[in-house]
């Protein structure tokens, strides 16, 4: 028993090793082959005629989607926070965090295609279209469909991150203060809260930017193809049957990595400019009263737009899963059929089971590590620096394409590749940051005097942890667990590579199916993909409410 505190003290270091080790090992595994064949592969890469456009496309869609997603998120908080519309949006968007990118992209594709749901709903009565119009809406060369998809998928993430960060910024009081000085609510937010909030939001924004520039599944479904984004092209090269393009794929992955780093550096510069601009607004007495109604309208429209795009797209997929023949321009299927569900039942059950086992083990590991870190931090009064936070974000900042192939090689050499356990372990790398980020704030906000009181009553630190802190934090722990489940369920590339194709989860199945374009089956898989994390979130709400239904002080009733 006396040794326990010592072991706990090692938790933060162990966690960082588990996070950083795979990323670094994977990067080396990818980079070394690329460097060894540097000249030839690089030459091939540079001679690919699509390189310039593909790189520009990656940068453009990544930056545009991040700017838009961030703008919408901040606009929502600035002009709607506290209103009923905001609460409704928040409830609508939270479960959507768990929707895998591929499912969201496929839903969006069906929504906006010229033969898609929107066109069907308006045809032929409003548009006169008997056959779908020849309009380049999807896969447009400008990458706007891809940008829209990324924005819709990232707004829920940024919004939840921002909401988690707000309490630490003393937002309510600062904002009230600015408002009493005459600033309209949005302006008060921008001047008094935004700088502090953005400091907390910076790393999530970087993660969004890095993801937007390197997304593969979304780019393949929504992005242009002549040429595709660089990351999509890298995966095409990786998959080339002649094996001759593996060098160029590795060179492309390295270029991708540097492109992300360069854009992050530019973004950092942009932050400084934006901050200056904001200060100028503030000191020039801008109150923003006239703009307030317009901002409110814009916030409502964009928030509702994001929710609509995601929900309608996914409803479309759900509908497809029970559709019989559904031709253009019918707004609804001509006939209904449960054939897909009956047919796919076994496969669905099997992959649901595998998905759950992996997600639950990865989440349990991540939760245990997170709790150990936070408890060590509390008991030993450790102060994690900013560096630790950056490290925590590392797996989200380094493009997956750049380090997962190397990690797969490592797993192969260790002989663990292809096992669900290895997949779960690789998921921990991506699950842990989210679990940590969503649990750390409420955990640290716990009133330390409770522990002191309990110690004064003779309770050991362990007893305080198990009987007081953990039960009191149950809701936060379960919510973090649900976030972890959602993240694990959505993982594609790590599952495919570390699982060696033998570990079939809902997401790998759905993406494999998406190459076949079978909307009915994709719909069925996407639906289950959504339902599982939603159940997790529901449990996180209901279980504490049930356990503490007679405890007003736990704040679960209202």
């Amino acid at each position, binding site marked *: 028993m006396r040794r326990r505190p010592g072991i706990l003290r090692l938790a933060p270091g162990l966690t960082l090793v588990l996070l950083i080790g795979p990323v670094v090992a994977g990067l080396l595994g990818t980079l070394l082959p690329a460097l060894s064949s540097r000249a030839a592969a690089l030459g091939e890469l540079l001679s690919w*005629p*699509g390189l310039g*456009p593909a790189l520009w496309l990656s940068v453009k869609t990544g930056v545009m989607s991040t700017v838009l997603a961030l703008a919408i998120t901040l606009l929502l908080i600035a002009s709607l926070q506290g209103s009923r519309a905001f609460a409704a949006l928040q409830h609508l968007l939270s479960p959507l965090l768990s929707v895998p990118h591929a499912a969201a992209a496929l839903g969006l594709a069906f929504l906006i*295609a*010229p*033969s898609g749901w929107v066109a069907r709903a308006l045809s032929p009565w409003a548009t006169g279209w008997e*056959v*779908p119009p*020849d*309009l*380049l809406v*999807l*896969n*447009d*060369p400008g990458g706007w469909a891809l940008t829209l998809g990324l924005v819709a998928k990232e707004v829920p993430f940024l919004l939840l991150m921002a909401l988690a960060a707000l309490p630490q910024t003393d937002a309510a009081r600062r904002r009230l203060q600015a408002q009493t000085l005459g600033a309209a609510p949005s302006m008060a937010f921008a001047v008094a809260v935004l700088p502090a909030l953005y400091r907390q939001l910076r790393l999530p924004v970087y993660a969004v930017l890095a993801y937007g520039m390197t997304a593969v599944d979304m780019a*393949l479904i929504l992005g*242009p*193809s*002549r*040429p595709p984004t660089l990351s999509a092209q890298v995966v095409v090269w990786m*998959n*080339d*049957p*002649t*094996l001759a393009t*593996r060098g160029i794929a590795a060179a492309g992955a390295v270029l991708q990595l540097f492109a992300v780093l360069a854009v992050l550096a530019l973004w950092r510069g942009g932050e400084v400019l934006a901050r200056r601009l904001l200060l100028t607004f503030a000191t020039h007495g801008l109150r923003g009263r006239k703009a307030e109604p317009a901002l409110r309208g814009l916030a409502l429209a964009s928030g509702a737009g994001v929710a609509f795009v995601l929900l309608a797209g996914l409803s479309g997929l759900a509908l497809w899963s029970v559709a*019989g*023949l559904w*031709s*253009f321009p019918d707004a609804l299927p001509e*006939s209904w*059929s449960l*054939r*897909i569900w009956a*047919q*796919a039942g*076994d*496969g669905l059950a099997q992959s649901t089971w595998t998905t759950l086992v992996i997600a639950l083990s990865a989440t349990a590991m991540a939760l245990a590590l997170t709790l150990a870190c936070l408890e060590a931090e509390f008991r030993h009064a450790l102060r994690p620096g900013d560096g630790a936070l950056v490290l925590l974000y590392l797996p989200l900042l380094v493009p997956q394409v750049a380090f997962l192939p190397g990690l*797969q*090689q490592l797993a*192969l*050499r260790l002989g663990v590749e*292809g096992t669900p356990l290895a997949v779960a372990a690789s998921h921990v790398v991506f699950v842990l940051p989210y679990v940590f980020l969503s649990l750390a704030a409420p955990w640290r906000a716990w009133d330390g005097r409770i522990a002191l009181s309990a110690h004064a009553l003779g309770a050991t630190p362990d007893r305080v942890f198990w009987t007081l802190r953990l039960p009191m934090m149950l809701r936060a722990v379960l919510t973090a667990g649900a976030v972890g489940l959602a993240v694990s369920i959505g993982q594609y590339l790590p599952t*495919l590579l570390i699982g*060696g*194709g*033998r570990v*079939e989860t809902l997401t*790998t*199945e759905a*993406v*494999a*199916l*998406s*190459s*076949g*374009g*079978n*909307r009915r*089956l994709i719909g069925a898989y996407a639906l289950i993909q959504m339902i599982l994390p939603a159940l997790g979130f529901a449990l996180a709400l209901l279980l504490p409410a049930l356990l503490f239904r007679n405890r007003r002080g736990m704040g679960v009733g209202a």
Partner: protein
Amino acid sequence: MFRRHFLLATACIAALPHLGAAQTAPEWEAVLSEARGQTVFWHAWGGDPKINDFIAWVSGVAQDRYGVTIEQVKLASTADAVARVLGERDAGVTSGGAVDLIWINGENFAAMKAEGLLHGPFAESLPNWGLVDVAGKPAVVTDFTLPTEGFESPWAMAQLVFEYDSARLPEPPRSLATLKDWIIANPGRFTYPQPPDYMGTTFLKQVAYGTLADPSVMQAPVDEATYAETVAPIWAFLDEITPHLWREGRAYPQNEPALGQLLADGEVDIGFAFNPGRASAEIAAGNLPESVRTFTLEGGTIGNASFVAIPFNAAHRAGALVVANLILDPEVQARAQDPSVLGFQTVLNLAALSPQDRARFDALDLGIATLAPDQMGPALLEPHASWMTRISQDWVERYGVAQ
């Protein structure tokens, strides 16, 4: 006329080296007993639920007859499996590999064979090999002009057929020339998957067969000296149709299923597929309207076979051999040809089957949209892989990057 003779000649040449004796019973018995209880990891493209269901059905038969379990590893792309065997070799995994059986053909096969990643030769020693129609279907031993040499075993024939909705398009264009006129007259109603996608390059091959002065040059590797001149008619053809394609050629569907979805959504009027029974099967599944029909071009369309191969380091080689043999079984082949199941063309020589087995095929209702075997027209051989590599590279440069 020339082409007919040429095809026949190739068929004979291709058939010659494959007269090896079938494996004797005791050796096969040993394989069977070793295979019993094994689980075969069959890496196969998983994008089509009908194929997945078929494999699941085969798994049941394998279990009942031989005590062999099949686990289908559903791939988004066959190249994933190739890459993984290569990765295993690079990591020094020379036995106990993850891949036991791969559904493979064309470039993937060529790459694996060239890298020495395949077990074999094995195909011609399978007990059911004698039923395979080597003479009538030369593509079963010639994969993209590359002799298979027993390193892969065929299990389905495929031939390019065009699909159209007769309700919207009563009389489809039946030659490449009339197809061109139709495309120009009906802008935005035709497209093809973006090369280097396999179906996209297949369309380019079809264009090559229809436009090249002498298509037989494509059976030999590319001759750099004459290449540009030889393929010039292809580019001329494409330059003419591209502005009139779906989305004015500014976007292309990514693969065959995506093209099929465009046809189902009414975004295009003519699609095409490598499976002559696909349209009927899709109608039966409620994915296409009843009015969809198929046609082939005068002079024939590209045809080839799908194969299974066994990696050099397969953990369950005996089981894989048993499965490769099982899918040549007449009962399994007949089921694969059933349009309500897969609608794949059989690789077997129907004349070599017992009356009982033949009855299985005769009983099949090929489906409303499927052409009868005598309506299919000739199956043109796949060109040498070097042609398609060059042509699809050039396509990417000409049409595949936005400038």
